[in-house]
């Protein structure tokens, strides 16, 4: 066993997991408080990436671009809530799925029209573009460490926000009984819009962080949104803790599966078969995990006690 490789892959898995958490946390917030299934959450991830990518060239620096793109993405989220999402809250989950599926088509096509099909490659400042050697042989790109750092910081911030601020109390209260929150004098519509915008910013931030790695691309949201749903379902919808744990688990499973499954498979089949079976099985693994968990715990790992 190559422990250096294992260490590097665990870090890679952690990084993927934290990115997933950024997307899933917004999703679970919105679902938890609004009971709203939002497939278009992934499109906001894409929009965040594109806005940030464009701004990187305008402002000349990736970090400045992120700082400006964050509130802009929040505004996009706010606008989507006002124009589309708000009108869907009263309907059932089926309508949410279909309505936001339509929204995905609209946003993806709009991004194609606005930014072209090519996608944008995002340059990083020099100091972020290098790599560090954590110990002999364990070389990690600096930027991936930055993603891990940002992810952990945001996760901490979110836990603080949800558990120790008045906004957080209102978010939790709203998740359990919106009528009562409203009857006690809180403008629930504005609270919803705020939460939606916050979710959008989190998802957008994930998109901004991935852009220097994979580029900003149309359709990038469609891939992550399903994984993010798997995360919040496994974690228990509405649970921030669940989302965090599930995201890390899935990030690790996916990365470690991609790295070591083929080696494992060569134990039971020939090399060629292992080479092709491994990627598919590792792609399937998160769904298998989800099915198994739901079969045992139909409400996910940490169902919040709200209703």
């Amino acid at each position: 066993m190559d422990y250096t490789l294992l260490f590097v892959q665990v870090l890679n898995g952690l990084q993927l997991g934290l990115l997933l958490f950024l997307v899933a946390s917004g999703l679970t917030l919105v679902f938890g408080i609004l009971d709203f299934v939002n497939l278009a959450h992934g499109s906001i991830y894409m929009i965040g990436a594109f806005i940030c990518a464009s701004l990187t060239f305008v402002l000349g620096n990736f970090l400045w671009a992120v700082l400006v793109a964050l509130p802009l993405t929040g505004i996009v989220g706010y606008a989507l809530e006002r124009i589309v999402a708000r009108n869907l809250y009263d309907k059932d989950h089926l309508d949410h799925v279909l309505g936001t599926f339509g929204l995905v088509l609209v946003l993806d096509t709009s991004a194609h029209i606005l930014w072209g099909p090519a996608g944008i490659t995002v340059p990083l400042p020099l100091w972020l573009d290098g790599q560090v050697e954590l110990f002999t042989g364990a070389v990690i790109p600096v930027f991936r460490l930055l993603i891990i750092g940002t992810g952990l910081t945001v996760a901490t911030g979110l836990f603080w926000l949800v558990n120790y601020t008045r906004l957080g109390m209102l978010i939790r209260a709203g998740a359990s009984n919106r009528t009562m929150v409203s009857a006690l004098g809180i403008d629930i519509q504005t609270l919803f819009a705020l939460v939606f915008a916050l979710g959008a910013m989190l998802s957008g931030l994930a998109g901004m962080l991935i852009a220097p790695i994979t580029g900003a691309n149309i359709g990038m949201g469609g891939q992550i949104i399903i994984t993010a749903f798997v995360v919040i379902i496994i974690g228990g919808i509405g649970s921030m803790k669940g989302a965090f744990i599930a995201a890390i688990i899935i990030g690790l499973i996916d990365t470690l599966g991609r790295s070591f499954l083929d080696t494992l498979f060569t134990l039971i089949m020939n090399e060629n078969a292992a080479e092709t079976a491994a990627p598919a099985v590792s792609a399937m693994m998160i769904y298998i995990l989800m099915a198994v968990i739901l079969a045992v715990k139909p409400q996910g790992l940490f169902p919040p006690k709200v209703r």
Partner: protein
Amino acid sequence: MKRLLSAALAATMLTGLAQAAEVKIGFVTTLTTGGAVVGKDQEKAVNLAIEHMGGKMGGLDINLIFGDDGFKPETGKQVTDKLVKQDNVDFVAGYIWSHVLLASRKSVLDAGKFLISANAGPGPVAGKLCHENFFSSSWQNDQTPMAMGEVLNQKGVKSIYVIAPNYAAGKGMVAGVKRTFKGEILGVDMTTWPTQLDFSAELAKAKASGAEGLFVFYPGKAGGAFMKQYQQAGLKNSLPLYTVFSVDALSLPKFQAANFTDVLGSQFTQQWDPTIDNAQNKRFVADFRAKHGAYPSFYAAQAYDSMFLIQSAVDAVGGDLTNMDGMRAAMKSASYSSVRGDYTYGNNHMPIQAFYLREVVKDSGGNWTTKIVQTVYDAHQDTYAKDCSMN
């Protein structure tokens, strides 16, 4: 709904009646999704070709219809069906992606039309599925990586690690390099196509394998993402990169905009380059640049060629589109002027052609482009030709 259908019906009847003396060409490419980067470049090249022809082939007007495959085999087959059955085209050209071509070929060939691949060249269509009405204006998938394998041998690389997407062309590329590379292949990673764009796990494995080189195939936008991550991982000195079809004229301007200088000097094999010295290529590259402000990609070059290949067929029979044999013979002779220079067709209608090693350089205007470093093969034929029953 009924009224809508009868209106649509009436419309099609009208166009059916208005059939003038024209040659109908369907061009299937990718116009939506991330794959559209490539499709758009082909679209530009095809339109430029038509312009250069003055809109005529063998005295007939050219009626060109583009079809969008949406980067999916199934959609590609559906638009192909429509071109064949509804628009009743005489030629179907295009096809960037091998799996789309494999899904669509039967629709065209069963209908007795000509099929011209302007990019994709999966093994089966060159071998056991070869067909008299199929021609390629590009290459067979394995050829380019075979040339790269040859280059690796010449450079004295002893071992490589391979990363490629898990679809028809990816498998072909891996098969190709395996065929000619004489050293050891320490590992092969096939990634989910086209969704996986983060290669951190694969890069870490490649590095840990201790290989002397990294062979990679990532067409379109994935190539850009891969190059970027390769650079971020800092592997340039420890694990040199050898690519096919992963750096192209579409990604270079983006790299230049992002000032991604590591890509300068990287090398890859190909059957064409903008610097190839012949009149057809000079005109193509110059006019393309004048019109679109960027170098054409090899996708564009092949699409451009596909139109002139068709033109040579229609010219040869003087516009008599019923003379299939005449058109077939004309194309088989490859007597048109190709932007890559002269080549011939093998028994399977795949080009027997030269392959070059290209390198990324700055041109005189400071734009990033490529030039030819050496000729790897003078006239290379693919290995599937022997499986083809035609002669």
